[in-house]
């Protein structure tokens, strides 16, 4: 199953990377909110401002979370698109927050479980005091099985850095 996902992911990368390259600006012009490093990224580390992140395909999730009151609609990008844009073939993300908290998220969570990196909450930018600027959001309301300690542990806030890792079975 994991091998099938990997093949699907690589195929997806190949098909969409050319299209994404045209839309996303080549370099950040504003404040860098996210840095990405890891396998197959030639520059070593790539910085993204909010405009670059907004240029990636956007996805929406409306859900409750354990950290907020009431349902909210979150919008953001998928790790699949991000890695596709960078041409990275990693299958595991090492995500670091502003407080240096770090967690690992399999890329399959973004394909199978529909997780996103949210940059908007109810169409508003998320400030640092509101656990922004980037949060990992899972569709908890749509999939009951996501309400587990394992997934809560992967739902990291104040994301500042992503490292793409390729694990070989």
């Amino acid at each position, binding site marked *: 199953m994991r091998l099938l996902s990997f093949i699907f992911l690589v195929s997806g990368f190949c098909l969409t990377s050319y299209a994404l390259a045209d839309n996303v600006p080549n370099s950040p012009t504003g*404040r860098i909110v996210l840095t990405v490093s890891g396998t197959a990224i030639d520059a070593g580390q790539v910085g993204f401002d909010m405009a670059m992140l907004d240029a990636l395909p956007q996805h929406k999730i409306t859900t409750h979370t*354990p*950290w*907020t*009151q009431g349902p909210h609609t979150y919008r953001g990008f998928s790790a699949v698109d991000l890695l596709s844009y960078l041409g990275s073939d990693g299958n595991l993300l090492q995500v670091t927050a*502003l*407080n240096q*908290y770090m967690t690992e998220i399999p890329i399959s969570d973004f394909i199978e479980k529909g997780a996103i990196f949210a940059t908007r909450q109810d169409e508003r930018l998320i*400030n*640092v*005091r*509101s*656990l922004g600027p980037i949060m990992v959001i899972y569709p908890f309301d749509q999939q009951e099985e996501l309400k587990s*300690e394992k997934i*809560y542990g992967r739902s990291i806030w*104040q994301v500042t850095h992503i490292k793409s890792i390729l694990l070989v079975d």
Partner: protein
Amino acid sequence: MRLFQRKMWLSIFKQWVMYGFILFIITVALAIFSIITYTSDGSKNNSRRVFESSLWNALQLQLQSYRFLNYLIELDQQAPSLNGEAFFRYDVLMSRVDLLRKGEIGELIRNFEGGRTTRLLNIINGEMELLSFQLSKIEAGDYSYLPALVERVKSVDTQINEFVTLVNKGSNDYISDQHKTLQKNLDTIQLLSIILLACLLGLGFFTIKGLVQLKRVFKLNSNLNDNIQAVHEDKAQMLTFINQETRPPINAILGIASTLNSPETPKNTKALAKHIEESGNQLLQIIEMLSDLALIDAKKLALTPTIEPLKSSIEDCLILFESQMARKNLQSIVYIDPNLPAFVCLDLIRTKEIIVALLQNAINHTPTGSISLQVRPSASGAPVIPLPAGTKEVSVMQIALRDTGQGMTDELQQNLRINPSLPMQQEGPLPSKVGLSLALCHKLVYLMKGEMHFSCAPQKGCEFWVDIPFYVSDTGPIIEQHKPPQCPDNTQALLIETDAQLAKVISLQLATMNISVTVSKEGSMQDNRHCNLVILGNTASFERDGHDALQQWKNRSCPVMSYHPLAINYSDFQVKPLHFPITQSQLEAHIITLFANKKPLQGSTKND
């Protein structure tokens, strides 16, 4: 009535079992519901990791405050502007404060240490909020506010440290409470599980019992169906049997009626009429026997003891068959032991039915010869039965009936040996197996708490012994015994009889009248011994020696009684004729006549 009461009791018991079962189901349902509830609560409590998050965020607040302080201390004061970096760091710190104040974590922390943590957090938040003015100056490049800002952040450190300590303590207490709650829930779940297990074991037990009971009921049902089928078969057999039994007398009546209706009037109309009467009586008797059998099988036949004269009742039974036996040339005799009371208290109608049945059986199996009936006290003990009013004790009489016939078949004997007092033989012999009269006789004997035994030898005849209990009346005149007439002492009688059975019973009869009997078993008529009476019975030597013998007894003035056909019709000497059945009454009447002028002769019963 008792059966009905038992059913009532059973019904109430079943009702309580039903209530118990409903209660049992409710208990099982409650136990399952409670387990689900407690498990759900336990799961909810167990999944709440808010206390962990509160401690984590408190420590993160302390860590971020140190990082922020470190950032301020290491700040490059030569930079013209910080481009919002200081505020960015400040926001990271404040996001931890916000997390501790809002949501589930905030709600939890509010309950720690009686609100001390909330007060401390509010102080920290207030102090932190005040930093924003100095931060804005630093962001604008005015670093003169930096020392004051550093001092201010340092001053909050004590409160943050105390806050972390209180959150840690509160978290521990919370964890402890949660553990206690979980443990309590677990204990309750364990108890409920034990109850549920016990209930399930009980249910399993009752289910198995129920299945066993169901199996038993199915088996019983199957047996009942078999029994119903057997009843139908028995009914068909019984109807066939009734048809068989009633057909001969009906045919006889119809045959005689046909003869009487013929154009030529038969000469023996009287005999034919007698035959019709006998057949009619036989038919009535069969119907009565069938009715009695049905009543016995239905346990509806009630015995009605009455006080009746024993001797005449028994002798009447034998007289009933006089014609039937005469047609077959059967000789019959009856002896009633004088030791028995003259009057007995028992259901004499049923007793007569027993005797009639035995006699009928004997006649059927005896083509020639004799039938003797003796009634005497039984050696067997009296059964324990309740005494009716007016009686003082229970005694047992034995009715012994012997014939010189062919004997019964082995199958008939086998069926007659059934003892209804044994559990497996309660039904008794079937009429289709032993005949109507014997089946009724057998059932009546055991119904009257008596016993029936018999011995049988092929071509030598059968003997039946039937013990019948009777009540002895406690009223004065009735309990007197029968007293036969007594001849003078040393009265001698010569009995010429080749039939040992007849000889024996006649001897007994004469002995009751103080007459000593010498039996000529070979039938010899050449006996010259002195005797006061001669009884001439069956003998082959009558034609040869009869004339001389009778002349000799005439010369001696010795009275002669006989049932020998040739002797009765002898013209030269008046022979007192005896006819069958030979009863004590018949003999006594002759003896009284013969010895009337010789003392002493007294006796006969007070009630005769």
